[in-house]
């Protein structure tokens, strides 16, 4: 149905030509779902934009052939392409909220597409648009017709994007990271919906994702891409159980799965045993009935409602939950960036809530509690070099100066595995993994006893995530720190944590040792969360 042969795409940039896709060949048969898996920069999205001919400015198809049902898409006129897009081939995108026109009612956006492809007249458009919304299982579709994207949740927006894509019954659907940026339970619902619609309408599909687990669960065929080339093709079973290319092997290993340990993620992991750690009997941090209430439009909102737990010295506690469950509010209160409404935070026996969040910056215990932030890019000052970023807390909190400061920075760089020569680079000159290392070095620079990690690997590719997770595991053994590891990714939390807390709607649903919460969860919610993790084909484990 679709065949791509020897596709080459390059971009003309100010610094010369950049080849994004080099000699990619793909085939999609009727009714088949093809997965394209790769990390950022592998050219997987560019390939799909090229076949839709919606490359960004400066992007050129240099070579190759794209044939869809006998039509040569590369040489088709713009007019022909307009008819094919949406009518024959359509796309859904990541970050659904941004993918919709923010100032146009979703119903009207649907109508635009329907009328463009002559699927509806002015008189039938509204009716057809509501039908399309119903097809993607949006409740009260008639009411949602008048909604603007900002009034809908992320999952709902993605449903609208799907409705727009499928409104004109296309025969090929390209899904570009359709679940990135959505909550795990929503991810599952959205993927299941897409799968069901594809099967019902006997469509073909291309699923573009960085998540090998997701691809293996939903696809018939998988192509693995790296640096603009397809390095391996095969069925999910084959890719997962006997990957041939070294890169695929690395990728399969780096994908956290049920039985793997943190060292398994690394290509040569088994050789380095984890250093033993000591978890003392002494609670470093005890949280008692912590509450945070915000003033809302319609009455007070309990962001965190009576949370109690303990973290022992040397222990790593995982905090899991979906967006809006209060995990970020909790960690902000613990790191004393936010004042609590009531409750106590006992750190080494002292109640920290007695000191206001503002005054805590000058408190000597500021150095004991530090945080690693979610987005390594946004949390670094773009005008600071890596060295300045790491120096900042040392200068502010420990008043380190001169050569002592420099030797400490170099010691820290060594500790987090950041090459010394990268220290004088600015954030935009560093890769995602390197920025994560700078963020970690900054946080541990003042020798904290307690480190809060807020989704430290969420923005990273899996192979980089594997390295960063191992770095964190080594650091806690070496420095004897306690961690609070906040994440939405259960597999990642399981790898690093001794104890897990599951939060929902500001309350703790379940807490206990990792093996018990993950193995025999007592609450339904935890079971739901666990069941939504994409699983490799049954009976298979990572090689």
């Amino acid at each position, binding site marked *: 149905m679709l065949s791509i042969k020897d596709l080459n795409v390059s971009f003309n940039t100010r610094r010369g030509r950049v080849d994004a896709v080099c000699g990619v060949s793909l085939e999609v048969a009727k009714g088949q779902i093809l997965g394209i898996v790769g990390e950022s920069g592998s050219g997987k999205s560019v390939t799909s934009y090229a076949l839709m001919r919606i490359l960004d400015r400066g992007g050129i198809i240099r070579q190759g052939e794209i044939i869809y049902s006998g039509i040569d898409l590369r040489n088709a006129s713009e007019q022909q392409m307009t008819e094919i897009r949406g009518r024959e081939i359509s*796309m859904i995108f990541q970050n659904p909220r941004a993918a919709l026109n*923010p*100032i146009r009612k979703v119903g009207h956006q649907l109508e635009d597409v329907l009328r*463009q492809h002559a699927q509806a007249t002015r008189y039938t458009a509204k009716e057809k648009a509501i039908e399309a919304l119903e097809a993607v299982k949006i409740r009260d579709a008639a009411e949602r017709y008048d909604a*603007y994207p900002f009034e809908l949740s992320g999952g709902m927006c993605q449903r609208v994007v799907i409705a727009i894509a499928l409104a004109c019954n296309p025969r090929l659907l390209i899904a570009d990271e359709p679940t990135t940026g959505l909550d795990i339970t929503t991810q599952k619902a959205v993927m299941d919906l897409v799968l069901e619609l594809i099967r019902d309408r006997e469509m073909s599909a291309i699923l573009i994702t960085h998540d090998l687990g997701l691809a293996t669960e939903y696809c018939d065929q998988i192509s693995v891409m790296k640096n603009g080339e397809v390095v391996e093709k095969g069925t999910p079973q084959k890719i997962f159980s006997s990957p041939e290319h070294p890169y695929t092997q690395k990728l399969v290993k780096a994908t956290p799965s049920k039985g793997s340990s943190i060292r398994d993620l690394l290509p040569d992991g088994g050789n380095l045993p984890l250093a033993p750690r000591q978890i003392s009997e002494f609670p470093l941090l005890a949280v008692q009935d912590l509450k945070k209430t915000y003033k809302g439009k319609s009455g007070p909102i309990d962001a965190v409602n009576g949370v109690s737990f303990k973290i022992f010295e040397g222990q790593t506690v995982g905090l899991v939950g979906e967006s809006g469950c209060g995990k970020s509010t909790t960690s902000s209160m613990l790191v004393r960036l936010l004042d609590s409404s009531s409750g106590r935070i006992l750190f080494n026996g002292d109640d920290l809530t007695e000191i206001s969040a503002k005054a805590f910056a000058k408190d000597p215990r500021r150095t004991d509690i530090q945080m690693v932030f979610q987005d390594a890019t946004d949390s670094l000052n773009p005008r600071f070099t890596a060295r300045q970023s790491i120096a900042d807390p040392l200068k502010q909190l420990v008043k380190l100066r001169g050569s002592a400061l420099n030797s400490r920075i170099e010691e820290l760089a060594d500790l987090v595995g950041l090459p010394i020569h990268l220290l004088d680079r600015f954030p935009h000159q560093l890769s995602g993994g390197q920025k994560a290392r700078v963020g970690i070095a900054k946080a541990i620079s003042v020798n904290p006893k307690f480190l809060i990690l807020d989704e430290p690997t969420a923005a990273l590719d899996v192979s980089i995530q594997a390295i960063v997770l191992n770095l964190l595991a080594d650091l806690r053994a070496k420095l004897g720190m306690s961690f609070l590891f906040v994440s939405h990714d259960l597999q990642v939390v399981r790898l690093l944590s001794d104890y897990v807390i599951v939060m929902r709607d500001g309350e703790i649903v379940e807490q206990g040792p990792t093996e018990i919460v993950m193995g025999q969860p007592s609450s339904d919610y935890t079971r739901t969360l666990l069941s939504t993790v994409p699983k490799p084909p049954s009976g298979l484990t990572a090689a």
Partner: protein
Amino acid sequence: MSPRLRAILLRLVQAIPVVIGVVVISFVLTRALPGDPAVYFAGAAADEESIAQIRTSMGLDKPLPIQFLQYVADLLQGDFGQSVYSGQPVAEDLANRLPASLELTLTALILSCAIAIPIGVLAAKNPGSFVDQLCRILVTAGVSLPTFFTGILLIYVFYYLLGLAPSPLGRLDFLYIEPDNVTGFYLIDALIAGDWETWFASLKQLILPAITLALFTLAPIARMTRAAMLSALSSDFIRTARAAGLSDHKVTYGYAFRNALLPIITTLGMVFSFSLGANVLVEKVFAWPGIGSYAVEALVVSDYAAVQGFVLAMALLFVTLNLVIDLTYSVIDPRIGFDTK
């Protein structure tokens, strides 16, 4: 009452403190001006006694708070005071001169929008193209050429050399009679009167100053349009729209342009208020009887009432303008809720 109507009323109420503030500040500032209006009014030959007499008659011998109360009481009755300089009530002067300025500024703005927005859109659609270069040249020229220079240049070329334009002396050649005052805008009043000859004559007078001012206001509008369109065209939802097969026209104008309108409107509001005050130079060059030249002349001779009247009129105009812009926002962008305040 509908929520929108209530929001508008609320905004109007919020403007009241601003107006009060302006009344106080304009009063205090004009009193702080150097120069004694009584001395000026009495003339060069006046002696101490007659100056004192005039001061008493103008109420300037009373303490400041009393003067202020008197001023506010007059204002409430719609009395802006008497201009020392023109000898007319200030309210009358303003009513004569404000429409002249507004007519000039509005014509100039319409002209510059008609040129700047299409150029900005086309430049954003084809970066690096001929239109983009043209846009860059226009913007640079508009910013770097001062209005008094372009004004004089235009007069030199079109009046002196080519003789196409009439003499740059005010709103209407002395051969014509002013149309009956309805709106104060000659173009509109002449239309209402059905007097095409006068309409054409006043258009001829208006065209050069309007072009001068338009060249100046063109730059920020074109630049903002280009930037806003560029960022709108590169956003995710444009990609979705293209992938759904919407036509290029629909994507550019229906989706991208509407989203780009917000910053453009903001700039437009800023340019408008800015040029109302800044077109003094244009008014001077073209002997345009506008409010800007009126204020400057009044300021030079410490004409308290006239300066206060001017500042107050401008403040009211700005408040109205801001309200209109805010309302336009809420029409364009549903995310801007009025009811949240």
